[in-house]
């Protein structure tokens, strides 16, 4: 409270003349929950229905839902949190949860475990995925894993079998080159250039027994690893197994700008919960595949991670009510029917069982993919440190410098490790 007052004094400055600072907005309702999430109208339709259901079952509670597209979501959330006007329930991303939790913007939920939050039938690893520095700050809304989106029709045209869970990078590169060479479509290549895709790099590193970050927030790979990674992609670029750099640079790493959706490549690297969206804007039939292996025996590159969380704001008046809402969202059978797998595969075993029979083909493919990874999936890595977002930018920047020939693979490896180390040290 004290820090709020001191900051307000500073911020209001000369403006205090006009402000009636004592008057906060007065709320008519006894209990009111503001829920903020990112997503499309389709997601909003489902979420609003669940909110309606919750209000019906909890007299005296009013829920205000607000939603925005991903890129607009973060500045609005940051402004509201900074202005001490945060929504009570905040949809959180795996990366940002650390940034917000460490700075004290989220309420720890450990006290409600077992009483209000009945998540015993969750995969325990996924509960851990919502923890930061030993405290629980987010309840996973769905499991997810990095995945390769493959244009099945393009593979077929070129007369090439789809990749399997045991396909290696070497084989994948060959497939890519062959598709390009087949030349069935104009300006069409086998693969996207994945050298800047952080989850893909992470997958590759994990197969080598490394990782992106250590538990204490340092870089967990060295310049040789990075140089080898860049060299692998350099080779693929030379063999025309993947798209050239200026086409790859069109990719903003979202659904509609990926080389796959642009009709430039037969495969792109993304996350399994985006499968529906990818299929939605691609005419050809797509398939969901795991990432290639460094060799036939490699294991544990993948991991199931929460696709997104619900967190409760530290500024909320009634965190218990918040926890109750979140529990309803992930556990209630009626809510589950409404939500489906739109936010990823549900974490609750009971809900998964309930949904299994009702899913359409795409939902089925997602569920099967995430639950069928087997030995390809390993442990959840420690949550990304502060500065991880910037580190991802750095990877992209260096990968582009290598792609456009401004650096060779070895220089690229050194530059990347250097930059990432500096970013993490700054925090």
């Amino acid at each position: 409270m004290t820090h709020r007052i001191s900051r307000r004094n500073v911020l209001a400055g000369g403006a205090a003349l006009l402000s009636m600072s004592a008057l906060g907005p007065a709320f008519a309702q006894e209990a009111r929950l503001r829920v903020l999430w990112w997503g499309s109208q389709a997601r909003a339709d489902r979420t609003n229905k669940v909110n309606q259901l919750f209000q019906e079952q909890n007299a005296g509670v009013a829920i205000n839902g607000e939603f925005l597209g991903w890129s607009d979501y973060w500045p609005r959330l940051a402004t509201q949190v900074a202005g001490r006007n945060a929504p009570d329930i905040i949809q959180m991303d795996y990366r940002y949860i650390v940034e917000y939790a460490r700075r004290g913007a989220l309420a720890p939920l450990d006290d409600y475990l077992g009483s209000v939050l009945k998540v015993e039938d969750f995969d325990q690893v996924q509960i851990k995925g919502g923890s930061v520095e030993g405290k629980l700050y987010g309840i996973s809304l769905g499991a997810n894993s990095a995945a390769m989106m493959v244009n099945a029709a393009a593979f077929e045209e070129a007369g090439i079998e789809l990749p399997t869970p045991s396909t290696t990078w070497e084989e994948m590169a060959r497939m890519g080159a062959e598709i390009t060479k087949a030349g069935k479509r104009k300006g069409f290549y086998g693969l996207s250039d994945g050298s800047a895709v952080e989850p893909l790099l992470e997958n590759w590193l994990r197969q080598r027994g490394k990782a992106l970050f250590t538990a204490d927030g340092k870089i967990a790979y060295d310049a040789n690893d990075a140089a080898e990674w860049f060299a692998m992609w350099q080779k693929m670029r030379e063999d025309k197994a993947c798209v050239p750099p200026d086409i790859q640079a069109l990719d903003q790493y979202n659904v509609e700008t990926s080389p796959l959706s642009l009709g430039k490549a037969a495969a792109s690297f993304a996350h399994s919960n985006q499968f529906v969206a990818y299929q939605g804007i691609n005419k050809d039939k797509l398939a969901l595949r795991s990432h290639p292996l460094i060799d036939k025996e490699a294991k544990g590159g993948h991991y199931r991670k929460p696709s997104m969380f619900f967190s409760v704001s530290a500024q909320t008046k009634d965190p218990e009510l918040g926890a109750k809402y979140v529990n309803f969202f992930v556990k209630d059978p009626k809510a589950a029917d409404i939500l489906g797998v739109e936010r990823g595969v549900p974490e609750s075993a009971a809900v998964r069982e309930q949904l299994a029979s009702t899913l359409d083909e795409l939902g089925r493919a997602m569920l099967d993919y995430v639950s069928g990874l087997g030995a390809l999936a390993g442990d959840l890595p420690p949550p990304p440190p502060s500065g991880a977002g910037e580190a991802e930018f750095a990877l992209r920047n260096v990968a582009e410098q290598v792609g456009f020939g401004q650096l060779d693979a070895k220089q690229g490896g050194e530059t990347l490790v250097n930059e990432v180390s500096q970013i993490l040290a700054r925090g």
Partner: protein
Amino acid sequence: MAAVQDTAVAVGTGASSRPAAQSRLARIWASHGAGYMFLLPWLIGFFGLTLGPAIASLYLSFTNFDLIRAPEWIGTANYARIATADPKFAAAVKVTFLYVVLSVPFKLAFALLVAILLDRGVRGLTVYRAIFYLPSLLGGSVAIAVLWRQLFAGDGLINSLLAQFGIEGPSWISHPDYSIWTLVVLSVWQFGSPMIIFLAGLRQVPTDMYEAASLDGASKFRQFYKITLPLLTPVIFFNAVVQTIDAFKAFTPAFIISGGTGGPINSTLFYTLYLYQEAFGNFRMGYASALAWILVLIIGLFTAFSFLTSRYWVHYDD
């Protein structure tokens, strides 16, 4: 600012024609009060809405404010880092200066040229004017991002045209050597605002002066050079100053076209885009505020310089 030259005539003569027995207070009111009366709404807005947040951001530039926790005073550390240890700052400054230098002159020249063509009694003036303003209606809409790709991507319209001449172009919009140019083209394409201002300025040129000049047998070029141009200088000056300020502060074009990254390889990392990334992406509002005040300083110097030189080439009627 040097441009606002005082001319004593107006209020002075008015005051002297009033009854002589006025108190000192009334005299002060007569010479200063009216000005402040007219300025009142702006002054209220300035003190009530603008000044506070500006001071706050100046204060925050000396702190490590991370949007969520209380800011801590860290002295000039942010400024020191900017000056000595921030390669991205250097990259952003370079990109921004390039953008200012390329986009402002082209945009202004184009706008002036079209305004003059349209002003000189072209048939269908209103139709052309409306068409030329259309791109500016789109502003920074999300649709622009998609449109620009359709034009400047590898298989976009521009390359299809070039292919007619046997030229195989790169993907202009996503190539580090050319991407900034696509943003310059976007800026020039949206030349509607300065064009309208030029047109309004041309309207203010008294036509009897042209008549006199025609009688004297002055050529059209001479008429333009001797009559139109000098009378248009206040408007040219205005457009140059505000377009330069706008170009320094440009954010939306790079934001929507690069998807907020400023890529490829920082080639479209506008200053304010970098500032935005630091503030909202990396939770360094304190650092971003320091960046902002350095930008204010840069723009301020440019503007002050323009005003200083303006007395040599801008002609006011008063």
